[in-house]
């Protein structure tokens, strides 16, 4: 199978969906611009014309309401926010209107809208351009919330999100955009609401999602070599959440660590832990734990920001402590030194800022 980057895979999902269904349109600031939302919409304007790829004013709130109005008539709009923070201007529409419109119409109207929200970190973005905020949407009945961690899932989930007749919040982490993966050329669906066991294991269940999965996978091999076999679950969908897959896994491993992509306090990880302790408390052998980004505003300076992000050492230590398995200290330090990238504020070595 071909390897393509995450952003290419998003673009393929958009392209195939727009070819399949003429009602699918792209809307947002920058969708037609030469950079094309981190490459994900590049040249789509030329391909599909300005009725299908609609550049918009900086009016996030109205655009969201406009998408709703068009959607209940039959359009299938895909909105894009280059930073999740901009979408906060449209919170009223998302939380009060989009999520509830189907219900408020007693099932007579439907709201097939996808809102792509780009989240991220690094390159000194600072406190207002580095948030994730997944929980603000995941709390709301009526919304679906999707957050793929790789190019393959991104394509299948986005295609499915576009087919879905409900408002779907689609989180794309900027650092994933440049990571390649095996992606079939053809169109395929990945079901919303289904987590994926990306590594089978028996010693501990690690639940994670979005870019945090990348951070987990960086230490996976080392764990295996050293006799720790984690079962790693990629949530992929945050709402509705796939309780079954999580619970079945923890039933087996009897240990749980959640690696959150964002702040843990009142975060996604709190729900995962609650689901498990509510349902199979007796099965748990150890206290379930969570790690996320530091519960503070993310500063601009790279020397500060690096203390806020997920950190391989912390993840490793937590796993060791929960599983109770020991790893030679020297080996551990050597490994951590090796995987330490020179700079923690860029997604790959030859990256030249700014985003």
């Amino acid at each position, binding site marked *: 199978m071909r390897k393509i980057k995450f952003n290419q895979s998003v673009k393929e999902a958009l392209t195939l969906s727009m070819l399949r269904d003429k009602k699918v349109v792209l809307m947002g600031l920058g969708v037609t611009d030469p950079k094309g939302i981190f490459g994900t919409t590049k040249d789509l304007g030329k391909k599909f014309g300005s009725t299908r790829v609609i550049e918009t004013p900086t*009016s996030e709130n*109205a655009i969201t*309401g*406009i998408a709703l109005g068009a*959607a*209940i008539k039959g359009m299938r709009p895909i909105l894009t926010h280059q930073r999740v923070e901009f979408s906060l201007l449209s919170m*009223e529409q998302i939380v009060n209107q989009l999520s509830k419109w189907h*219900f408020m*119409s007693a099932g007579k*109207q439907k709201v097939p809208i996808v809102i792509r929200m780009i989240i991220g970190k690094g390159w000194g973005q600072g406190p207002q351009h580095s948030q994730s905020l997944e929980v603000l949407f995941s709390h709301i009945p009526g919304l679906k919330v999707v957050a793929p961690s790789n190019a393959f899932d991104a394509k299948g989930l986005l295609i499915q999100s576009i087919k879905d007749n409900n408002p779907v919040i689609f989180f794309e982490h900027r650092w994933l955009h440049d990571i390649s993966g095996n992606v079939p050329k053809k169109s395929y669906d990945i079901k919303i609401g289904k987590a994926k066991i990306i590594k089978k294991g028996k010693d501990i269940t690690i639940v994670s999602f979005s870019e945090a999965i990348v951070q987990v996978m960086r230490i996976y091999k080392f764990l295996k070599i050293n006799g720790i076999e984690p079962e790693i679950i990629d949530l992929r969908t945050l709402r509705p959440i796939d309780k079954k897959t999580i619970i079945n896994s923890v039933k087996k491993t009897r240990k749980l660590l959640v690696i959150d992509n964002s702040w843990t306090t009142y975060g996604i990880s709190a729900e995962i832990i609650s689901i498990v302790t509510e349902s199979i408390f007796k099965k748990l052998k150890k206290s379930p734990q969570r790690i996320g980004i530091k519960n503070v505003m993310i500063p601009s300076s790279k020397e500060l920001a690096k203390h806020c992000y997920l950190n391989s050492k912390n993840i490793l230590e937590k796993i060791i402590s929960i599983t109770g398995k020991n790893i030679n200290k020297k080996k551990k330090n050597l490994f951590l030194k090796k995987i330490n990238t020179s700079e923690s504020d860029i997604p790959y070595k030859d990256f030249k800022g700014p985003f």
Partner: protein
Amino acid sequence: MNKLYRDLYKKIYKIRCVEKKISTMYKHQEMRCPVHLSIGQEAVAAGVCANLGKKDEIISTHRSHAHYLGKGGNLKNMIAELYGKDKGCAKGLGGSMHLQDLDNGIFGSVPIVGSTIPIGVGIAFYSKFFLKKNNITTIFFGEGATEEGVFHESINFASLHKLPILFVCENNLYSVYTGLKDRQHVNRSIKKIVESNGIESHTSTGNDVLDVYSLAKESINKIRKKKGPIFLEFKTYRWLEHCGPNWDDNLNYRPKGELKSWMNKCPLKKLRGKIFSNSKKNNTLDKIEKKINYEIENAFQFAKNAKFPKKEILNKFIYSN
């Protein structure tokens, strides 16, 4: 009697009597939801909607009864909705602030001020670029909604894409208990603001339904032709309290005599006056009124007799298939 007059009279009389009936019946505590009555403001809904076809879409606000009825929304389903019943237009899920009737082009109403404005723009966006039919979308809102940013974002977008929209602002001078002077500079002109966005705009009195009708007619014809939006502001006045079934002039948030002077401009009386100077056929009106009174009685009976929705409905509309 002139057909137009008859149609307008039907609409105004119906709105007035439905609202009055709600107002009297509310005390029985069976309509257990907030209601924002339109008594005094009927002419705008009637005059505008008389120009709209079934396929034309409207969208409204917390104060939507008049628009719903003016546009021909099903009365039984409306009253049942207020009673929280299964036969309600939203199966009791929404109440008075969430009226809709898709068969009659009424796409919705919500109690968040300003929020239906972009939604209406979206409906028109679809009409223009996908439906390519001649229908137009009318967006009703109060002058308070023009203080919300989303109104301004919406008119910019509507103007930019030359959408077939009639914006109808009912300026009733108040937002809840707050008069205009505490919310907008005296020199602020909503009409001029909209105009400066490249949209044809007009201000007019809102209590003479014939004035409303002809301004709306002219505007709608233009929209159908050039397919750009037009904005109309109508000055009008709400008689009862902001929310609820009662009079509230005793609260003194409105200057003494203001209510009375507006009651003298009663849309119903005004129209009746015109009809009587034009025609003597008193019994036509009588017939109309009787028929409507009967319809209203029926609707309330229907609503009361209807069943409450079943619990199972709660999980049914979380997601659409």
